Every structure is written in C-alpha cells, then in structure tokens.
C-alpha cells in the first residue's frame, strides 16, 4: 500500500479548476437551450397539435432511446459525411447541441407531467374569464408547473454537468478529459480521479443549495 501523493493532488487542483468554466459553461448553455426546446415539446404534446405532436413523440422516442455518446458520435463523425457544412461545427458546439437534444427529450416528459398534473379546473377557470389557450398556458399553468418540475429539472441539470465528460471523445478537453490526460502521464490514478470526483461533488452540492433556495421561493405562494 503506497501513500497518497498529497503534493500532487494539491498541485492538480488549480490545473483542473481551469477547466471548470468550460464544463459549467457547456452544461449551462445546454440547459438553457434544453429548457426552451423541452417546454416547446411539452406544450406541443399537451395540446396535441396535429402533426407536430407525432413529430415531438418521434423526437422524444429517439433521443430518449439512444445513449448520448451514440448521438454525439452520430452527429459529430457520422452526419458530416452527408452534410459537409457540419464539419465546421466544433466540438464544444456539438457537445452543447448533443446535450440540448438529449436532455430536452427527458425534460419534455417531466414538464408534460407537471403540466398535466395541474388540475383541469384551473384551465376551465382561466377560460371562463376569457383567457385564450395561450394566455392560460403562460399565466396560469406554466407558473404552477414550474414549481412541480423544478426538482426533476435540477436533477437533469446535475446529470448534464456530469455528461459533459463525454465531450473529450469529440476533442474537447473539459474537466474529465484534462484529468484523464494528467493521470495518463503521472500514473497516479487514485490521486487524479479523487481530486476530480471531489470537484464534481462540490459543484453538485453547491447546486443543491441553490435548488433548496429556489424551491423555497417558488413555494412562497403556497405557504400560509
């Protein structure tokens, strides 16, 4: 049993932290795009818009039914064979797009569940005072659904942060890619992977704290 090389671990921390903005940035951009796309998908599914509803179903089925890594490879290495302009899309953009498509499929389903979870009487009440369907959705249903969906969406965000580690296969050196390279040159595997594990853990803990605050805020209207 050899002793942990603490000096190496301490020295690695600032190196790896340099990749944190990229990892968090890709996840945040992916989350922002996925939120928009998934809300769109969920609303299409709930309102059963003909044609679009089937397309949304197919989209969700494909992106939920295949691994993210497969999607990334398909998109980044496969598709450019047919659509040559895709070659100019770099690894970071491709990762953000992949995260967006993949996670919006999941998020659409949990947003849909949150929307359908709001009692029908709410819709009826809104429409009885003359709101259009769009107004009902925006003013009455979505604000309530947001509160219900927040914890699951936060879970997807956490998952997304960790999924950025796949970007290294597309040539993007992010947090995990940087760690793998450092470990491959120092051969101090335990030290390197322990440091990166703790970094991921701290990020997620910080997010959980934010989630708690956010939930409290969203619940304010329900506390008497």
């Amino acid at each position: 049993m050899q002793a942990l090389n603490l000096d190496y671990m301490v020295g690695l921390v600032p190196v790896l932290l340099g990749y944190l903005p990229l990892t968090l940035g890709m996840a945040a951009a992916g989350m922002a795009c996925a939120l928009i796309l998934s809300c769109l998908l969920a609303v299409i599914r709930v309102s059963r818009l003909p044609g679009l509803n089937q397309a949304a179903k197919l989209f969700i089925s494909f992106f939920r039914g295949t691994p993210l890594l497969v999607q990334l490879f398909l998109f980044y290495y496969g598709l450019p064979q047919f659509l040559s302009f895709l070659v100019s899309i770099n690894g970071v953009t491709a990762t953000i797009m992949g995260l967006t498509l993949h996670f919006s499929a999941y998020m659409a389903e949990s947003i849909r569940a949150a929307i359908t979870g709001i009692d029908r009487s709410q819709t009826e009440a809104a429409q009885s005072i003359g709101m259009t369907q769009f107004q009902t959705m925006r003013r009455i249903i979505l604000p309530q659904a947001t509160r219900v969906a927040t914890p699951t969406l936060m879970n997807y965000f956490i998952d997304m942060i960790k999924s950025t580690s796949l970007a290294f296969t597309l040539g993007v050196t992010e947090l995990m890619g940087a760690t793998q390279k450092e470990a491959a040159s120092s051969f101090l595997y335990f030290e390197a992977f322990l440091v990166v594990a703790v970094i991921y853990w701290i990020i997620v803990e910080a997010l959980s704290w934010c989630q708690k605050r956010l939930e409290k805020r969203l619940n304010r209207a329900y506390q008497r």
Partner: protein
Amino acid sequence: MTAFKTLARTLAITSLGLATFMGTATAAQAETLRVGMSGGYYPFTFVDHDKLQGFEVDVMNAIGKQTGDDIQFVTASFSGLAGMLDSGRIDTIANQITITPERQAKYAFSEPYVYDGAQVVVKKGNDSIHGVEDLKGKTVIMNLGSNYETLLKELPYADEINLKTYESNIEQDVALGRADAFVMDRTSAAQVIKDKPLPLQLAGQPFSKIENALPFRDDEKGRAQRDRVNKALDTLRENGELKAISEKWFDSDITEAPQSEGSEKTGSNS
C-alpha cells in the same frame, strides 16, 4: 483560462448562426496544420500540469518550423482521432500511428519517422511470461483501435489468448493484476517503467517491428500536406534535429531505420 475563451468564442459563433460557420470554415484553412493526438501516451504525447508535451509534439513543431505551417494541436481520446481525421476536423494524427496495410489503403502516409517494436509488458515479479509465445491462456490488454490488436490476432494461437481492448489506463490494470499483460511499443513501455511508479517489467524481446508515420487524408489537399511534411522530415533527418528530439525523450535514436537483422520477421508492417 484558454478553456473559457474557447467557450466564449464558441457561444459567440453559435449565436451568429450557420452563415458564420461557413465563413470561419473557409478562413481557417490557410497554412494551418491541425494535428490530432491523445495527449495520454507517455512519453510520445502527454499532458503534465496542463502542458502538452512529448516526442510527437516536438517533432510536429520542428516540422512546422520547416514548412512554415502553423501547427495547431487538437487533443481527443484515441478512439475519436480517426473520426476527426475522416471528417476533416484535423489534418493528421501524431500519436505513434503504425503503418498497416489497412490504414495504407485508406490514408496517405508520410515516410516513417519512428522505428520500434511491439512489446509484451507484465507486472513486476511475473516471471512466467517471457514474450509473446507465453501469452496462450492469458488475459492480454491493449489500447482500443491500436495496431497491437491486429498483431496479436495474427498469431497462430490467437484464439487461445483472452484479448481485451479499451480506451485508457491499460498499464494500471496490469499493475493491479486484473490482466496478465499489455502490449504496446517497446520504447514507451521502457520509458514508463523507468520513470513512473507502476510495478511493471518488460517480458522478453520485442516481437514485431513497427514503423510509425503521419496519416493524411488521401485527397489532393492531404497528399500536398504529406509531401510538404516529407520534405521537412528529410531536412530534420539530415540536420540531426530528429535524432536530437528522440534522444531527449528516449535516450536513444528511434527515428533511424534499424539495420536488417536477417531472420527476424517484419510482421504485417510495410
């Protein structure tokens, strides 16, 4: 903070839309040689405290100085490199790529710049394996997509070897005793054993000669790049720079073709 800059730039580009993509794509072509490597293959290409270095890095920089090209390194996991070359995201791979008939049919290779041998490596103290002939019934691992897999599969008793390939950390799995041996090139294996804390030892002599070169896409642009690089390699060979780089990393010259050793088989390499 280069990572952050890359991201900021990407976001800016993304927001400008597809038209900008096309624009940057044509602008970026001029005189830049994009070189892919794993950055995880000591001491050919590795990263120590965020600094990409190694034999391949020095060689490519020296080539760039000769051709006047701007060398741009792109690191990706080894399994992603061939895809990047095929899809035109990089121009060549500098990661100890062995010339094989299959690869030769597909790519335009530069002239060889590394001559090496395939080597069996075992855990320190394992004296039951003395070379490739002792691998029957053993678990042997190697890097995914590497040429060593093909070499082992060509052995007459290949079906008696439990062969596994994966992405990285094969050295660690043998040191831990999860696999009996790994196969990689002799020079890096020797260097890893010498410099790194893992308990490993070489098992016997190298069993197949390998020649490494730079693969380019087999089209007009790729072949032109290859010709430029070949000319630079010739110059570096003549002025001794190639030899100096080799001695810096390996204490020996691996860039010179060995004198023919008569009986030894040259394997599948040409």
